[in-house]
């Protein structure tokens, strides 16, 4: 019985969502590659790339929601994990350029030749292998989150103080990555990628595949998060969010549970970054900017924290808005974003999905007070399945 806990914890909402996502992973590439451009159903390539970007943003927002919406940890530095994942993937893509760079050096990326590097720094070793880069994408941000979280949660740093030090963390990394002698391309970052796994990174089919990979990873992340938040662990996380010290007196090691959520969340953010970089074609220190991390929090708040679908909807909607808005009035986007955050805080404190859900709950008949007594199903939980 207990081996099926992952399946058991999937609720209808998450299943429906995963089905939609997988359908998109098939439909979008088909509409782009198979349907001829003359057809009205044809999806232009720039939209495929744009949707792929949105999927990465949605993944990032989901990672924030897991810790903020469900565990009360407001990280204002999650962009750091996203960027680190992005850099690891960028390093692989740089090594793939090989002798095709401007300076034609078979080993050293262009910026190293330009900065008079004589040989490859040790931390660039191994990045010519895709599997190694994938390992680092998960390992380095996971370790950073582990060490950072261990120290912060053990010292019982909570609330705004935690938010401030996460912000300091991403700012420190921003400054470090800006330095030319840090070995990651300084101000310009990593760019001019040629191919990934032997496929031309600019090709229409590669872009469609990257989109499909992004949404499938999103579906997997929703599955993992759903299994966490719908389990007893998820309930304890919400208990920590609402009454941390009471949870301690119940015998739960709050520090460990927070650390677990923080590391899972950081890894999801890092994978989002790794998928993002090949699709936008560049990673530079600007991704560490504290403002980026704050923006993710706004997406999550707009969509509805404490729901799994909310941050995904928020991430996509706000970024679609950004795409449209910056096209028409590029100078006013930050005002619009700030205004949106204030409006949502004032009028939709539960976010879009949270508000829809509570409106729906009010309309539906109240849950019966007396639930059916234990049925014949061995071990079937009675009231332990919340709607989310």
């Amino acid at each position, binding site marked *: 019985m207990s081996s099926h*806990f992952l399946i058991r914890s999937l609720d209808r909402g998450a299943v429906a969502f995963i089905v939609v996502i997988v359908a998109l992973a098939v439909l979008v590439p088909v509409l782009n590659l198979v349907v001829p451009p003359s057809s009205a159903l044809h999806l232009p390539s720039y939209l495929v790339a744009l949707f792929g970007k949105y999927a990465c943003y949605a993944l990032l927002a989901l990672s924030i929601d897991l810790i903020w919406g469900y565990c009360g940890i407001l990280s204002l530095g999650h962009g750091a994990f996203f960027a680190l994942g992005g850099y690891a993937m960028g390093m692989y893509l740089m090594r793939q350029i090989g002798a095709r760079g401007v300076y034609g050096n078979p080993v050293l990326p262009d910026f190293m030749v330009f900065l008079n590097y004589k040989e490859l720094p040790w931390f660039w070793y191994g990045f010519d292998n895709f599997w190694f880069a994938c390992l680092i994408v998960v390992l380095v941000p996971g370790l950073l989150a582990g060490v950072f979280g261990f120290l912060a949660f053990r010292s019982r740093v909570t609330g705004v103080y935690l938010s401030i030090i996460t912000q300091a963390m991403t700012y420190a990394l921003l400054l470090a990555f800006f330095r030319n002698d840090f070995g990651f391309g300084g101000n310009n970052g990593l760019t001019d990628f040629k191919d990934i796994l032997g496929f031309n990174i600019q090709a229409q089919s590669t872009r469609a595949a990257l989109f499909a990979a992004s949404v499938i990873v999103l579906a997997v992340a929703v599955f993992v998060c759903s299994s966490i938040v719908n389990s*007893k662990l998820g309930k304890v996380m919400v208990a920590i969010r609402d009454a941390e010290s009471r949870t301690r*007196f*119940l*015998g*739960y090691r709050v520090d460990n549970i927070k650390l677990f959520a923080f590391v899972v969340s950081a890894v999801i953010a890092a994978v989002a970054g790794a998928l993002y970089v090949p699709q936008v074609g560049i990673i530079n220190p600007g991704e560490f900017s504290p403002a980026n991390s704050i923006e993710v929090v706004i997406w999550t708040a707009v969509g509805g924290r404490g729901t799994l679908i909310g941050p995904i909807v928020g991430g996509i909607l706000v970024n679609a808005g950004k795409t449209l808005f910056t096209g028409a009035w590029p100078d006013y986007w930050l005002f619009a974003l700030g205004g949106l955050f204030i409006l949502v805080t004032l009028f939709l404190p539960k976010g879009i999905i949270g508000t829809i859900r509570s409106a729906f709950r009010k309309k539906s008949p109240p849950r019966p007070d*007396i639930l059916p007594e234990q049925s014949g199903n061995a071990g079937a939980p*009675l009231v332990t399945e919340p709607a989310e």
Partner: protein
Amino acid sequence: MNEASDRFKTMLYLNGVSVSFDGFKALNNLSIIVHPNEMLAIIGPNGAGKTTMMDIITGKTRPDDGEVFFDGKVDLTRLDEAAIANLGVGRKFQKPTVFESHTVWDNLEMALRKPRGVFSTWSYVAANDDVARINEILDTIRLSARKGDLAAGLSHGQKQWLEIGMLLAQDPKLLLVDEPVAGMTDAETVETAKLLKKIAQTRSVVVVEHDMSFVRELGTRVSCLAEGSVLAEGTLDQVSANPVVIERYLGR
């Protein structure tokens, strides 16, 4: 009292415990003993150190001085809150603290004595025994009809009862109960006294309470605390006849 052989027979053993906050002595050489399956009621004026004493037993506060032993041998001053809770010390707070965004059922399920690790909590599936135990507790605390409701929707008295139910689910050897009948009706108070007396047949219970009629209802050994140490001990009649207690707490 300092004999170690005596200590080994106790459930809770506080000896010469002192703690001060910014120069204020919250506890001053406090010594208290609770035996297995015994109930002790603690009374005393505000600021007598009752809540500080609970904080020290449950690991929230470290004493400056003195010994705190659980079950005769476990030194509680070296452990943190979670470790102490898992040893079998349950605490009910003065202000009822239940998890309001969870259902009554989930509150009990989280409290149920089960492995508390991250992965065992993640993979937890309620066994038949667990379901039966939760239903039994729901009966005891009379919340069976509300088990699917959010704890936020309960009345004050019902929250107090739910918290007592959570203590029962933890299956502790020692219960620390801080003002369990605050905000309860007279009928509820009587029921709570009955429930605590029943619990004390198999576990040790320490009750902190201001309500004298409730303490009389409990009919148990009483300690009166004042200014961080024990003023008087004995039956309620003995304690309330004590001239120092009358002067410092009851009288005036």
